[in-house]
């Protein structure tokens, strides 16, 4: 909470990046207390580690201080306030943590976790993998995971094209000469 307030208040972008990193690490801690080590792992490595480094290298290319905002300050505050209130209102509808009658525990989860005699649970009996998270992600939801991997692949390709296109564009423009004059500049 203190971290969040500081992120909004601090004008130095360097401090902001550091604080978002701390926020991610705290988030990883929360995930850990919710017994979700897989998510905590990801949050700690991506949010606190890689994202911070990427933000810092972006900072190195731009400036270290954000500009003081100009213009009407009430409208953004209103939008943020209303969105936040909506989100809080939506959480009121959510079941309590660990509520056995929650929709998550009613859908397919009981089938994956059903106790089997030989193997621990159904997911293990069907996939041979004791970690249910891995079994669900890898096997039952293989399509989803393939899609996610493709998203990461696409992201990498996108960054390559946007940030790394300079060399090839020069080559291409020298070949096509007049055509790509504007682009090369």
């Amino acid at each position, binding site marked *: 909470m203190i971290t969040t307030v500081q992120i909004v208040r601090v004008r130095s972008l360097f401090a902001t990046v550091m604080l978002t990193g701390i926020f991610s690490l705290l988030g990883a801690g929360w995930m850990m207390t919710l017994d979700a*080590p*897989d998510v905590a*792992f*990801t949050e700690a*490595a*991506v949010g606190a*580690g*890689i994202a911070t*480094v*990427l933000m810092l*290298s*972006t900072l*190195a*290319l731009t400036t270290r201080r954000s500009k003081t905002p100009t213009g009407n300050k009430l409208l953004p505050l209103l939008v943020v306030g209303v969105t936040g209130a909506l989100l809080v209102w939506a959480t009121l509808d959510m079941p309590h943590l660990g509520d056995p009658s929650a929709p998550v525990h009613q859908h397919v989860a009981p089938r994956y976790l059903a106790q089997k005699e030989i193997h621990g649970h159904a997911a293990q*009996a*069907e*996939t*041979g*993998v*004791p*970690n249910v*998270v*891995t*079994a669900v*992600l*890898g*096997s039952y939801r*293989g*399509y989803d*995971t*393939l899609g*996610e*991997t*493709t998203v*990461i*692949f696409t*992201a*990498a*390709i996108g*960054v*390559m094209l946007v*940030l*790394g296109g*300079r*060399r090839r564009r020069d080559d291409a423009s020298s070949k096509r000469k007049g055509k790509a004059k504007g682009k090369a500049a």
Partner: protein
Amino acid sequence: MSPVRRQHVILRVVAKLLIPYILLFALYVQFHGDYGPGGGFQAGVIFGAAFVLYGLIFGLERAKAAAPPRIIEILVSLGVLLFAGVGVASMFKGGNFLDYGVLEHDPLAGQHLGILVIELGVGITVTAAMITLYFYFAGRGRA
């Protein structure tokens, strides 16, 4: 190596000590994902983070020497290809797309093998993607 970097003796020594263990831990997360928390994505990020740390401490040039961008670019697509390839392989074996049960005689072993391979594919793509992102962001200012 720039003279500024030369000063950070502590950082360099600690990084040198840590990086092998980070890589080892990533491999553990990758191949122990069946039994404990973790899996391809997490392992890939940790593996990539080791390279990013190396690049931060020792400079982009040496990181590029350790992980040649050409190979990394190939690896980005290789992971997805491996994942999709498992799906196609299971189709050739007479099952549905990504139905690993048919990969081996025993459906259980097939499932296990399939999950292991696709997690490896995820890991390769994520590692390579993270390293690529870092290379392109960090190398932006100097070209």
